[in-house]
Each structure stands twice: as structure tokens, then as C-alpha cells.
């Protein structure tokens, strides 16, 4: 068995070791079982669960989705049953997943993040925590945690204090300087960064003369935002040493490679699953071919190699 034909795709996000470097984006893959008829979950790295909050949330009014050129706008509004119901009814089922399971925590105060992280992280079914800090902070005029360095730091520190499990913090692109936020979050104890969450956007129905989403504004995802996401990874990779989970519009191995070459250690696929549930497997097989053709023994060898500023996971 030649090494070149089986390049090593393993990746470590803090203590979270994944066989393959593909995570399924939070909110896009349910809890994994929804996609089980269409994709072999044993062949994906991890499913990031839909974000959960302290209290139950009905979610936003409808419509919650709008299709835009090469993109998708969504405003789901964190519909979820709240952490207690989740722990009591849902989490046990995740034990049977043949891939890693990353819990996603959302909140509206620093205390929310600490509380939900603590409650969720003690469960064995959950292998790592992703902090979705793109929610408005009710304490400061609705400012989003991810858009303010102090709030991002506080949420990260609060979560870090209550768990030793791998902690991924998900950054928002809707900021002037994402690298600055990344540095602060790294300093606050994050093990890895997810880059990027959706880009703020809106579509208007010109017949009804109102926004197409019930919530007016939403988050833009899909291939349309890929160039924005690649640059964000590029900039963050030159600012921090912790691993980056690149995401935004990945639909193929070539798309994923843009992120790896910019400095991501792993990638996440969200909207790509809505295009075709075979995207995650196409990505891993395409990565193997790419690496084999170049005689690379592992994915690690090429991470950040297009980015002169790449600092590299320590």
C-alpha cells in the first residue's frame, strides 16, 4: 500500500481528532440522521448540531428562506426546544452517530453561554462545543457578540471556564477586522475557530413590497460568499495559531482546497448539502486524489501553503 494513494486526512481541533476534515455546518445538517439516507455518516468528520439555547425558541416567522444568485438567505431564528428538553430527549440519540458530534451553543448573555455550555459539555455524546456567538447581546443594544471584541472575549472565556472539551468559536464576517476578533478569541482560550458564519443580507419581494424573509434580514450562505470566506480564513490564519474550520460555499474538493491552502485545517459544509448530499464525500475523495497526485502524504502538508502570512497551528 503506497502512502501517496492513501493520503492522511486526519485533523485535530484541540483534542478533537477527526478521521476526515469535514464538518457539517450547524443548522444545515439537523442532527445527522436527516441526511443518513443520502450520505454515509461514517465518511464525514463531524456533524455540528443545530444551535441550542437556554430556553426554548419557536424561531422566526415565515418565510425563513430565500434563494439568491448562487446563495441562500436564511433567518431560522434558532428554533430549538431549549437545553433542558434537549438534554432530556435528544442528546442520548447522538451516541449512535458513526462520526464525531459537536454541540452548538447560542445565547443572549455571557451567562447563557456559560450555562448552556456547562450543561451540554458534560454529556459524553457531545465530543466538542462550538460557540455560535452571532446572536445579539440583550445587554448592549442588540450588538452581536461576534461583532464586538469584548463581548466575543467574554463569551469565550465564560464557556472555556466551564469545560475542558474542545471549544470551537464561530466568527462572524460582518465586522471591519475579523483578524482582530480572532486574536482576542484565541487569547480567551478557544481551541479552534470556525470561519465564517453567514453574511448579513436581505432580499425584497418587489411585488409585495416587503422583505422576502419574515425576519426582514437574514444570513447569506452558499457559493456566493465563498470569496468572502476564503479571504476571512486567509486573514485569520495570519493572525492566530489555533486551527481554523473554513466554511462558506463549499461544494467540491476544489472549493475546499481554497480554504486549506488559505490556512484552514478543516472545512465545514452547510449549504453544499442542500445542493447535493454527496458533496461531503466528493470533497474527501477529491482531496485524496489531489494529495496523491502531488505526492503529499497528508493534508497537513498543504495547509496554508498559498498564504505567506500563515502562522500555522502551534
Amino acid at each position: 500500500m503506497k502512502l501517496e494513494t492513501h493520503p492522511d486526512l486526519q485533523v485535530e481541533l484541540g483534542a478533537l481528532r477527526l478521521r476526515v476534515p469535514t464538518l457539517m455546518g450547524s443548522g444545515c445538517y439537523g442532527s445527522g440522521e436527516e441526511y443518513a439516507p443520502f450520505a454515509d455518516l461514517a465518511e464525514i468528520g463531524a456533524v455540528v448540531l443545530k444551535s441550542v439555547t437556554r430556553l426554548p425558541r419557536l424561531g422566526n416567522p415565515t418565510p425563513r428562506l430565500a434563494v439568491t444568485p448562487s446563495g441562500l438567505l436564511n433567518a431560522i431564528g434558532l428554533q430549538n426546544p431549549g437545553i433542558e428538553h434537549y438534554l432530556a430527549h435528544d442528546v442520548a440519540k447522538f451516541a449512535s452517530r458513526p462520526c464525531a458530534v459537536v454541540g452548538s451553543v447560542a445565547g443572549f448573555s455571557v451567562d447563557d453561554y456559560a450555562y448552556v455550555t456547562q450543561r451540554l459539555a458534560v454529556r459524553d455524546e457531545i465530543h466538542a462545543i462550538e460557540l455560535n456567538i452571532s446572536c445579539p447581546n440583550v445587554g448592549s443594544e442588540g450588538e452581536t457578540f461576534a461583532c464586538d471584541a469584548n463581548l466575543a472575549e467574554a463569551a469565550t472565556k465564560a464557556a472555556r471556564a466551564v469545560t475542558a472539551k474542545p471549544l470551537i468559536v464561530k466568527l462572524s464576517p460582518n465586522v471591519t477586522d475579523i483578524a482582530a476578533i480572532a486574536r482576542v478569541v484565541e487569547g480567551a482560550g478557544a481551541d479552534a475557530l470556525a470561519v465564517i458564519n453567514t453574511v448579513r443580507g436581505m432580499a425584497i419581494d418587489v411585488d409585495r413590497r416587503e422583505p422576502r424573509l419574515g425576519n426582514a434580514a437574514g444570513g447569506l450562505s452558499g457559493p456566493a460568499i465563498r470569496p468572502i470566506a476564503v479571504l476571512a480564513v486567509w486573514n485569520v490564519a495570519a493572525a492566530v495559531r489555533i486551527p481554523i474550520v473554513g466554511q462558506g460555499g463549499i461544494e467540491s474538493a476544489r472549493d475546499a482546497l481554497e480554504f486549506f491552502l488559505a490556512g484552514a485545517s478543516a472545512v465545514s459544509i452547510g449549504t453544499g448539502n442542500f445542493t447535493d448530499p454527496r458533496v461531503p464525500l466528493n470533497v474527501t475523495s477529491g482531496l485524496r486524489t489531489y494529495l496523491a497526485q502531488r505526492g503529499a502524504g497528508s493534508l497537513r502538508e498543504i495547509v496554508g501553503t498559498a498564504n505567506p502570512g500563515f502562522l500555522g497551528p502551534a
Partner: protein
Amino acid sequence: MRALATSPAIHETVVVDRRETLSGIVILGLYAPEIARLVRPGQYAMAVPPGGERAATALGVYEARDERISLMLAVVGVRTRELANLQVGAKLDLLAPLGNGFDLEALRDDVALVAGGVGLASMLLPAQHLTASGRRAHLYYGASTAEALVDESKFAELGIGVSVATDDGTRGYHGFVTELLERDGRAHDVLAACGPSPMLRAVGRIARLRGVRAQLALEETFACGVGACWGCVVAIDRSSPQAPRFPQASSAWDGHADAASASEYVYARICKEGPVFWSDELRW
């Protein structure tokens, strides 16, 4: 509706037939033996975009017979245009069959089928099923204009009566199909409908007034089509069997603060719990 025991998968199909009507509706015939065998009336497929770069498109399975199925397409945006441009010989991958179709047992003796536009696509399989099991049905079918009325003959062939309406009066009743249904003398035990939301709401109102029930096949923008993203929801009675188990919750973005504010409804996924719902359980 009740979950059906069909197992969905990704199927690689091929376009074997393509019809285009004067009004631009395209009917794609596909070689898809497994889907043809598995599909139940009211189920749908998600069509993987041949060029990538956008979410898959939800389409009702129109016909299913002899290893073939067909899809009926109205071009409204980029995704449906791309699909409508497919020619014979082109490949098309489908996630199918998806969703819970009509509750056929509950469609008892005399059924009013109500279709608006390409909502007709979800009505032929139920019609075949009803007539095959000896039940009576009548189709109320509305479209914008005469040219946009397609394939009524397929229903007539089944021995089903057809009444048509057009918005511009170029054929049949001049007005909405729901007005036609309202004015029509016939009494029906139950209604089954597919079409644009305003039409379905009107069908629900008519059912309530008549004291009968209606099964509505809803449409909404889908992303995943498999229940993963919670994007395609509709507000539904908390007590409905189709309602997701869910604790009382607040409805606002600042829901962190007032979980106590109970709501009577929850959001159910049209793609998963539906697409067919009983009208009297919807809170829309």
C-alpha cells in the same frame, strides 16, 4: 399525515421525454424505476441542480408508471429555468421519494381535488389511487389563462369530472378556482388541494364553512428538503399529531427572556411533517 414506509435515496435518472406547453410549462419524463415503484401520492422529489451553485428544487412527482416518472415544471426563477432547459438524454439526480403524501384512507367516498397551476402535478397520483379503489372524485382546476391549463384529459380518462377556471376567463369559470368550488353545488366529503398559498387558505375556509376537512399540500421555499434546516416551516396547532414535540416557548428573537409566554402553535417542517397537512390544524 402519517409517515409512510418508503425509504428515500439519491436516484440517478435520465430525461427520456420532454414536453413543453404553449404557456411554457415543461413536463420532463424520467427513467427512474425505483422512484416509480416507491412513490406514494403527494410525495415529492428534490432535484439536484445540474450546474451546482444553488439549493435543490422541490418538485411533486406527477406521473409514475412502468419504470418512469414525470415532473411538471413552471419556470419561476433560476432553478426551475435550469431544470426546464434539460433535454432528452440529460441526467438528473433526485432525492426521492420525500415527505408524507396524502392520507388516502382519510380521503373517503367523494373527494374534491383542487389544483392551482402546477399544483396539478401533485393531483394525478391521488386521482389514480382514488379511482382505482372505486372512490368518487371531481377535479377543480384553475390557472391564469386557458393556455396554462394542461393535461386535464389525463383526469377525464380516469373517469373523473373536471371543472376549470381561469383568472382571465379565457376558459371555464372566470375567476379563482376556489370561487368555482364555492359556487359549485356538489357536496364532497373531503377536499384535497395543491397550489399557491392564497388558494390553499381559501380551500381551508371553504372546508370549515362546509363542515368537512381538507388536506392541503403546501409549498414554501425549501433548502434541504429532508428536515435538516427548519427553513420550510408552517405554524401548526400544538396538539396536531404532525406538530414536533416542543416545550412551550417564546416566539421572539429575544425569546431568552419570556419562555413563559406560551404559544398555541409550533412550527412544523413542510418538507418532513408535510407537505400535506389538515387545514384545520394549520395556524397560518
